[in-house]
């Protein structure tokens, strides 16, 4: 018994504590911004945060807050409040939860700090546009929209010009709201740190190529927070260096995220925040490790377009060509690439009622993966924050059946 606990203890990632510290300090700073005189911007997860960092503005992420709402199981209550305000229960639950939080300072941290401005980049969905319009009206603060035309099959020169010009407009917007000049030297440094942070994050995720994988997608969901919120800071770079070292050490010692890794799986779509523990244990108990996912890798996918010597000049491309802003066939191509890279035995797809741009097209991706790789896929119907869309018994049965399929395949190929 004692031995078992020891093994379990060994598998725990030490950096978690540091991450909690950083996030707590970050939220305290954000929530006390009024006293320190710093400005606060709410920004979408795919938005360009670096110019905010360069302007000493505190970025706050309603989507990260939405994840916290989901993880603390406050989603249903807040979503219902939004519905009472007239918002349909079919809308994105991040948006619903956040919209309901604002007037009552609800949620796990008593609401987000009041924004001085809103920055919305629609490279992830059209929902954020509507959501930020709602909040811009509610808080009566300026809203900047970075409009990144969808790349069905290509990133056109027209789109490049349009978005690049908006980067200039964004800077002019910040100068106006902050009442000071933009610091073009500082952005170079922030840009360098951002790219380095992304590279380190990718390196962390890459350690899961090892067998056993030292971290799972469930760990990645947690450690993601910094690359989203504090990208472009030294702190983030330091943190991921530390995390990477820990992962490398685990690889050296053969410590896996899952006790006895038998099956390697790829996760698609957002996490089911209120059930990450349950899902993680459910898969782990059968020796299945979700070694990679399409979600957390989206924050380093733009690396290939980044030029640290011309950070602002490559910003348009980096933000327009991200994972969700591309066609279904290109997404399928990237899923296949990841499946090969991490050498997975199957794919678990979360069909997420909240997120139409991420979920519509999944059936086609599933088919393409089956045709090209011949590996099985499992579709789980749920929602990332609204627990009412989660049927535990149904999902459990489906996972069990899926594991049986994996078992059968491993048996026959051995």
């Amino acid at each position, binding site marked *: 018994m004692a031995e078992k606990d020891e093994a379990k203890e060994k598998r725990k990632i030490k950096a978690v504590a540091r991450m909690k510290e950083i996030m707590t300090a970050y939220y305290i700073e954000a929530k006390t911004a009024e006293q320190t005189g710093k400005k606060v911007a709410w920004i979408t997860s795919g938005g360009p945060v670096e110019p905010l960092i360069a302007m000493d503005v505190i970025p706050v992420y309603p989507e990260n807050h939405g994840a916290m709402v989901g993880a603390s199981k406050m989603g249903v209550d807040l979503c219902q409040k939004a519905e009472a305000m*007239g918002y349909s229960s*079919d809308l994105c639950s991040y948006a619903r939860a956040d919209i309901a939080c604002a007037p009552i300072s609800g949620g796990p941290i008593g609401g987000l700090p009041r924004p001085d401005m809103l920055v919305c980049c629609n490279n992830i969905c*059209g929902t954020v546009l*509507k959501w930020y319009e709602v909040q811009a009206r509610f808080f009566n603060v300026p809203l900047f929209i970075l409009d990144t035309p969808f790349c069905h099959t290509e990133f056109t020169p027209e789109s490049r010009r*349009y978005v690049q010009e908006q980067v200039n407009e964004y800077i002019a917007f910040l100068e106006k709201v902050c009442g000071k000049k933009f610091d073009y030297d500082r952005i170079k440094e922030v840009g360098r740190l951002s790219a380095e942070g992304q590279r380190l994050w990718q390196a962390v995720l890459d350690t899961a190529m090892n067998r056993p994988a030292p971290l799972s997608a469930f760990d990645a969901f947690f450690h993601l927070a910094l690359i989203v919120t504090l990208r472009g800071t030294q702190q983030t770079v330091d943190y991921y260096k530390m995390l990477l070292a820990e992962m490398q050490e685990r690889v050296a010692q053969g410590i896996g995220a899952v006790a006895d890794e038998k099956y390697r799986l790829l996760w698609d779509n957002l996490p089911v925040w209120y059930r990450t523990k349950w899902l993680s244990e459910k898969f782990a108990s059968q020796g299945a490790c979700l070694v990679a996912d399409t979600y957390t890798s989206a924050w380093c996918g733009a690396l290939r377009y980044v030029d640290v010597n011309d950070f602002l000049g490559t910003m348009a491309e980096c933000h327009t060509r991200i994972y969700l802003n591309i066609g279904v066939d290109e997404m399928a191509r990237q899923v296949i690439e990841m499946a090969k890279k991490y050498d997975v035995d199957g794919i678990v797809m979360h069909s997420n009622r909240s997120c139409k*741009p991420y979920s519509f097209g999944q059936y*086609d991706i599933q088919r393409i993966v089956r045709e090209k790789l011949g590996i099985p896929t499992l579709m789980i119907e749920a929602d990332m924050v609204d627990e009412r869309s989660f049927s535990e018994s149904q999902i459990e049965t489906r996972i069990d059946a899926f594991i049986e399929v994996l078992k059968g395949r491993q048996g026959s190929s051995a």
Partner: protein
Amino acid sequence: MRQIDECYQVLADPYGYAERLKKESRRKIVGTFCSYAPEEFIIAAGAHPFRIFGTGEKARLAESHLQSYCCSLVRGALEDALAGRLAFLDGVVFPHTCDTIQRLSDIWRLNVGGCFHLDVVLPVRLDTDNARQYLTDVLKRFRRELEAKLGAVIGDDDLRRAIGLTNRIRGALTRIAALAGDRPGILKGADLSALARSAMIMERSRAAMLLEEVLAQLEAQPGAQPGPARKRVILAGGVCNQPEVYALIEEGGGAVAADDLCTGSRSYEGLIDETGDPLAAIGRRYAERVVCPAKHRGLAERAENLVRMARAKQAQGVIFLLLKFCDPHAFDYPHLREALEKAGIPSMVVEVEDRLPADGQLRTRFEAFIEMI
């Protein structure tokens, strides 16, 4: 009216109509979605723009591509395409609007063969010079791509003629709608809706002619006919493909004084400037027309527009008709309702799928609302 009957015939079997038109006129048929499809280019290229609504057949094939939480408009269109009911299409044009249409375009491109595929990735914001410049750039690209796909040259004069034609349609519909609102009883709400929807399907010069004839007849008709005073309501929402709604409102003692629908006024209001560069003029119209919730032009415009419309038409209430799973409209609804409340205008909302609920529930709700206002 004979002209209105013709419209109903077209709407009863739009696909059959398109097939016949194709055969008789030897013109290429280009399917479009949404009121943001710049159909002037298709007309200028000598092809026929055909707005796809879906026939509402039960979705079986579409179910292997779209989850249950997709709007019925998109699901229905995909179903028809996969079932081969749209085989007459030579091409299809997807303007970028909502997340669902965006993914429909991908799924269509990967699964529906036999016709060319063009995306018109319009800007989402329409409130800056930069965005309007991008809109013009996108239209230029669309013109080039369409020329290549159709093997046609789209000259400025062709565009001007196409603008002249669509302006005739828009102008006639705008005036018909105004008359119908001002002189209750001269035109049923369902008939106005049929005129607007069939003009998106019918051969456009035929549509223009019919509409102008209808207009002439209505103009000759005297004002309000005697009868019980009806309560005036505005119908607001997205696509309305359920003419029964009008009858239910009228039977409940109401009359639709005006609408803010994309199968209604949003599709025809605002003419294209016929002087100067035609492409730029088309861009200006799409940037300046009454905005749809999938586009951004300020934070208050849609609400102000609705309140202004309700006041100008002396409407006593607003009925929101929302399609289930339609995000852009669902997001705007609470704000619009609140703006109406502040202006002292009551409203009600109904959420529909492609077919109205069969029971009398909707009738009762309309009756109660109309009685209350």
